[in-house]
């Protein structure tokens, strides 16, 4: 065997991070580049469903079978990212009985454990379900945190020697003598962890092989080498509620349709989704009708949603792919299966394979197949271990702990912290000094924020996805400045200010779609806190120098406290 091959993986979503982990565990040299934060693309914009496969049990049985297999694997290797909520496919009176039966037999055919429960039983499980729901099928759906999962995959890859570069956009593929030999990337703030305000620069990364795992962006990477990769991006909206109206995944039991799923996720419930083909994965309309449809349609299953508070909405883009000869008109008809496009075989351009299509639940399996494919290229005989080795955070993890004594944290905060950190809890939460709560909505303490900063540099959005800080009800209204202050121990003030502004703007972006009722009241409060009290909209640090001498410098400046004259010696009269 010659020297270790160096593989460049493009894309820091679940697929890319899964591939990087797999290849690194097999002993290859890996460099992963991602244009934004980890999960910046499709992965960070999903509904958080760990599929049982039930959803595809009628329409796409191959995908369904893969889902149930991987569902079992992830429960094991990523236990700290998964909440096994269980799922229900519920049938309303107007929904087809025939389809209900098909769903049931489909689940059986794919090996998905499924049971019929009556309407009463379903309501006993989930009291807020509509009174007229006839019956349901229970399946092992779960909720999964895509951010935590990808960060854990990247951390594991790093432990095995991989280099992970975020905020590093691929600007060109290097093609020499008819072969892909590497990439050119533009680092937003230089290589390594992101530091706001730092000079970036371009880097040539030479590689023995390139894996294009950019999902909806795959066509763009292909264009750089004159390849035609026909990804059909399809957008979908997700609307986040401020509480969990249900603790079970609720699916509507009818053929594919918009607004047919509610996933309980951490402190929220996520309503989804739509399926609309778009031209550009980064620039597409985010529309009011989509949000309204989520609420109106899903209220048929859970009536209280109609009046409930939503904290934001976000859109994701599915990287759908179908072989050129299929030609579906409707994106909902396109298979959810994934494809390896070996550009040597397909386009006579050796040195690169693209992986397209597929879904989050099967990310590990996709990683395994492409890693097998890469190893085969180099004649490397190394087994895949990603299905057996737990991710960092999920090793020997049990949540039966006494946080109060252990970490001096109030119980709900301790419980949430330990659930997020899994087996890393001891390392992260054992501190010398006091460990106050920074984000009250999500129960995130200073120690957890500091741990995230170590992992992600000056990027508060990266801290956010690692910890959930600023992702609760107040959407950063109360904690953004605290998160910024946590950066200040490590970074200079201008760097902190830029990261802080970026976080505020990101939080605003999704909230705009939830601006009515309670959330508009919250947004108005946040606006007042940030603009009125903190004057961040007119922050003099960002503007022209002020003439301080033109303003009031106090009534008896110089020396004694201005109000001491009004205060009786016994403190009887008091100044404010």
């Amino acid at each position, binding site marked *: 065997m010659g020297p270790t091959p160096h593989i460049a993986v493009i894309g820091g979503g679940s697929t890319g991070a899964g591939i990087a982990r797999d290849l690194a565990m097999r002993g290859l040299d890996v460099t992963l580049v991602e244009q934004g934060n980890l999960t910046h693309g499709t992965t960070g914009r999903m509904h958080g469903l760990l599929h049982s496969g039930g959803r595809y049990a009628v329409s796409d049985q191959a995908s369904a079978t893969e889902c149930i297999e991987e569902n079992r694997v992830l429960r094991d290797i990523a236990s700290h990212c998964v909440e096994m909520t269980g799922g229900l496919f519920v049938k309303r009176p107007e929904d087809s009985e025939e389809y209900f039966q098909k769903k049931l037999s489909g689940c059986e055919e794919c090996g998905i454990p499924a049971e019929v429960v009556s309407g009463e039983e379903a309501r006993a499980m989930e009291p807020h379900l509509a009174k007229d729901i006839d019956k349901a099928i229970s399946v092992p759906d779960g909720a999964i945190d895509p951010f935590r999962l990808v960060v854990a995959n990247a951390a594991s890859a790093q432990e095995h020697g991989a280099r992970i570069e975020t905020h590093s956009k691929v600007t060109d593929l290097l093609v020499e003598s008819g072969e892909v030999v590497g990439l050119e990337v533009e680092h937003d703030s230089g290589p390594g962890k992101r530091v706001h305000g730092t000079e970036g620069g371009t880097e040539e990364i030479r590689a023995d092989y390139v894996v294009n795992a950019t999902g909806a962006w795959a066509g763009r990477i292909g264009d750089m080498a004159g390849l035609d990769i026909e990804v059909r991006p399809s957008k979908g909206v997700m609307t986040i509620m401020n509480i969990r109206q249900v603790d079970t995944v609720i699916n509507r039991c009818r053929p594919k349709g918009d607004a047919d799923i509610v996933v309980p996720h951490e402190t929220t419930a996520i309503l989804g989704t739509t399926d609309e083909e778009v031209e550009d994965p980064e620039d597409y309309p985010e529309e009011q009708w989509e949000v309204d449809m989520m609420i109106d349609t899903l209220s048929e299953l859970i009536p209280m949603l109609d009046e409930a508070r939503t904290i934001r909405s976000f859109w994701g883009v599915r990287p759908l792919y179908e072989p050129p000869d299929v030609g579906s008109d409707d994106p909902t008809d396109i298979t959810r299966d994934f494809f390896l496009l070996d550009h040597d075989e397909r386009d006579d351009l050796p040195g690169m394979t693209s992986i397209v299509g597929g879904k989050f639940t099967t990310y590990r399996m996709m990683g395994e197949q492409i890693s097998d494919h890469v190893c085969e290229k180099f004649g490397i005989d190394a087994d895949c271990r990603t299905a057996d080795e737990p991710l960092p955070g999920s090793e020997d993890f049990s949540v039966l702990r006494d946080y109060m004594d252990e970490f001096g944290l109030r119980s709900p905060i301790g419980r949430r912290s330990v659930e997020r950190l899994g087996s890393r809890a001891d390392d992260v939460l054992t501190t010398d000094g006091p460990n*106050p709560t920074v984000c009250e909505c999500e129960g995130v303490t200073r120690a957890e924020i500091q741990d995230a900063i170590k992992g992600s540099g000056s990027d508060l959005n990266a801290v956010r996805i690692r910890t959930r800080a600023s992702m609760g009800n107040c959407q950063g209204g109360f904690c953004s400045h605290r998160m910024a202050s946590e950066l200040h121990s490590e970074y200079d003030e201008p760097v902190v200010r830029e990261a802080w502004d970026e976080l505020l703007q990101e939080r605003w972006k999704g909230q705009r779609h939830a601006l009515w009722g309670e959330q508009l009241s919250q947004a108005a409060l946040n606006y*007042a*806190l*940030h603009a009125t009290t903190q004057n961040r909209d007119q922050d003099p640090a960002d503007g022209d120098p002020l003439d*301080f001498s033109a303003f009031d410098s*106090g009534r008896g400046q110089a020396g004694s*406290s201005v109000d001491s004259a009004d205060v009786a010696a016994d403190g009887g009269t008091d100044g*404010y």
Partner: protein
Amino acid sequence: MAIESEVLVIGGGLGGLTSALAAAREGADVRLVSYKQSTLRQASGLVDVLGYTPDGDGPLTDPYEAIPSLPDSHPYRKVGVGTVRDALSLFDDAVPTYEGEHTDTNALLPTHGGSIKPTARYPAGASAGLASDTRDTLLVGIEEMVDFDAPHIAAHLDATGVPFDVRGETIRFPGDLRADAKVTRYAKLLDTNSEVAVRGRMVPAREALAQRVNPLLEDEQRVGFPAILGDDNPGAIRDALGEHLGVDVFEVPMGPPSLPGLRLEDALFAALDEAGASIETGNPVVDFDGEDRIEQVYIEKNGAKIPNSADEYVLATGGFVGKGVESDRDGVYEPVFDCHVPHATDRYDWFEGELFGDHEFARYGVATDDDLRPLDASDNHEFENLRAAGSVLGGYDFAAEKSGSGVSIATGYAAGQRAAEEAR
């Protein structure tokens, strides 16, 4: 049999309190009812009049000078600049512990985010912290307090170009409070000056705090703390600390829960009580009778609807934050009397894409005539005997202008005074 008064003020924030106070001082029989905790607990306690024009010019040195050029819809234009001054005089008289009345010029105050903001009146506790005061400054943060990171605030202040050297240090607060202790716990410890253990010795809390700061002090002439220096005795606490440290001591205004905001609320309630108004808090107005005039309102108390009647009414229920203006997916409304709130029909026109864009929602509220009487969609009075005050009013963006307290005080004063004149 209804509970009767000449003037009934609905709302217990800055607008409602000023309104009730103005009416009571006019000699009217006033009753104030409020439902929830007011938004003063979320406010810094600073009293802004006008820091920036609606076009974003500023910080303004003289807020009064800019008022005549504000748009016609602005509440200041409805009451006039003279009324703004009179209203502030009432405020100065009612709350003697505030400073800033010695000049028309705005002050620049540091706040807990590390930026500075223009304001017209500030608590005595903040007065030694003015940014135009050139004395070097030490800021002291508490390790357990995530809302006030002194080194970060100092560095941010420095970036604003303040004319003094500023440094931030962090201490452990004496007395072993738990990491997530509320600001009121710190305040209470200092209010009571209870003894705390310091290296095995019992020392009064104020002295213990000063002892923690003393070794950190270099040659700064003033020391700023987060706004936690007492709820009942802030002046005495500041003096004690100042005496121990040999420097001026000030508080930096903070976000919620804000002690300066709560102290201001207490001061205004005390002044209102002294003026002889009757006050009922904790119960909502749920209904009313009347077509052209409001005959009576109903206050829900322990499940019963208690009628309250008055000659004149003042609506001071707040804006979106205080829930005096509400919205749903279909529109924006005023929930007590269903007064017309002009707004765009498409809710995607209510906001801008930029965080600090020119948001329409920030200006939503009831529209009034120059007498502060709410107008319906055809510009007719909603009710002959109703006036509105404070952030339930539309036509201005208090957060961008830094005009919130000033508008509440000025319109509260005008509405209260006119209601009293009308009723007598």
